[in-house]
């Protein structure tokens, strides 16, 4: 049985959501729907569906929704494949997984090509794609052995799953290996790439860090690759 999790953003993009639903009906992939804005405890509701025999969790929403559901599933079950249907803006994770828009989503789901990816961990939370923070007032220590300083104003990115922008810059970051990558980009193709084999420690008293392009958390934080693996249904144009 498919379980569809609808983020509140689907209310704003009713037309797009309906188009996806029509395709799903045509392909006979219907299932149970959970509306995130109408359930009190998403973790409890999702666990209940898994115990009732859910075979695939299909998320209709954006990066924030994907991060929320992955954090729930990582603590409940890592055996249920997830599929993300990008609805509205801020959908870099779905794009990285090869799901460009809601029009193609139903066909990608129907093809059911799956890949397992390791999740990144920041303090007690998990992330799929990346964490990013301004270099202003930020202190970095990698693998407990060296520190990094940027002499220009920039963004520090800790990457597990490369987004399309990074992918287009010919940078490799696989969510299937046992490490993360630390990136610094400046103008004139001046780039820095450092592998994180163990962990990266970040402190900043003035700015928070953004994970999966959507969730802000305050620092200090320790970021590493976790031992949790989640299986995603992916498209052929994924970045790994």
């Amino acid at each position, binding site marked *: 049985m498919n379980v569809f999790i609808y983020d509140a953003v689907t209310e704003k993009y009713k037309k797009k959501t309906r188009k996806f639903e029509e395709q799903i009906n045509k392909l006979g992939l219907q299932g149970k729907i959970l509306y995130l804005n109408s359930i009190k405890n998403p973790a409890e509701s999702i666990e209940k569906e898994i115990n009732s025999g859910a075979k695939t969790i299909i998320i209709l929403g954006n990066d924030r929704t994907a991060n929320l559901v992955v954090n729930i599933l990582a603590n409940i079950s890592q055996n249920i494949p997830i599929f993300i249907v990008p609805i509205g803006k801020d959908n870099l994770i779905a794009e990285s997984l090869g799901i460009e828009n809601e029009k193609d989503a139903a066909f990608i789901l129907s093809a059911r090509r799956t890949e397992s990816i390791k999740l990144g961990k920041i303090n007690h939370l998990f992330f799929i794609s990346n964490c990013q923070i301004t270099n202003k007032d930020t202190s970095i220590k990698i693998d407990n052995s060296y520190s990094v300083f940027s*002499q220009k104003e920039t963004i520090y990115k800790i990457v597990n799953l490369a987004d399309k922008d990074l992918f287009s810059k010919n940078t490799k970051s696989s969510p299937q290996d046992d490490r993360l990558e630390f990136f610094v980009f400046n103008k004139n193709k001046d780039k820095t790439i450092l592998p994180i084999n163990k962990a990266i420690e970040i402190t900043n008293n003035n700015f928070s860090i953004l994970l999966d392009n959507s969730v802000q958390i305050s620092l200090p934080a320790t970021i590493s690759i976790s031992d949790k693996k989640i299986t995603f249904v992916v498209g052929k144009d994924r970045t790994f």
Partner: protein
Amino acid sequence: MFKKDQNFENFTEAETIIGESVLVKGNFESNGNLIINGSLEGEIKTRGAVLVGEKSKINANISAQEMMVKGNIVGNLSVSEYLAIGESAKILGDIECSQISIERGAEINGRVIISGQKNRREESLETNNE
């Protein structure tokens, strides 16, 4: 990995890249290749190759399999195979390698030990080309 006759200019991608605007401080260990265009203070150990770009400023001892130097290094170099020193290089420190090439204009201030790969006969030179 570098080949003696290969042009180092083709070496543009590596597992680790330190950009021009970045300073790394501490001990860096790796199994892969490194490109350093920025600044580094500490120590580098890798089983791979290291390319030190023209604008780099390094204050570190470096141990690598192969190495190309075009920038400034204050520190000792230990290269198990081939070391290429470009015309813009400035090295203040001792060098140990199996094979070496030095372009005209390079500055080396330190002891150079070259132990050829085949006969393992060690030759040592004292150079001070400024």
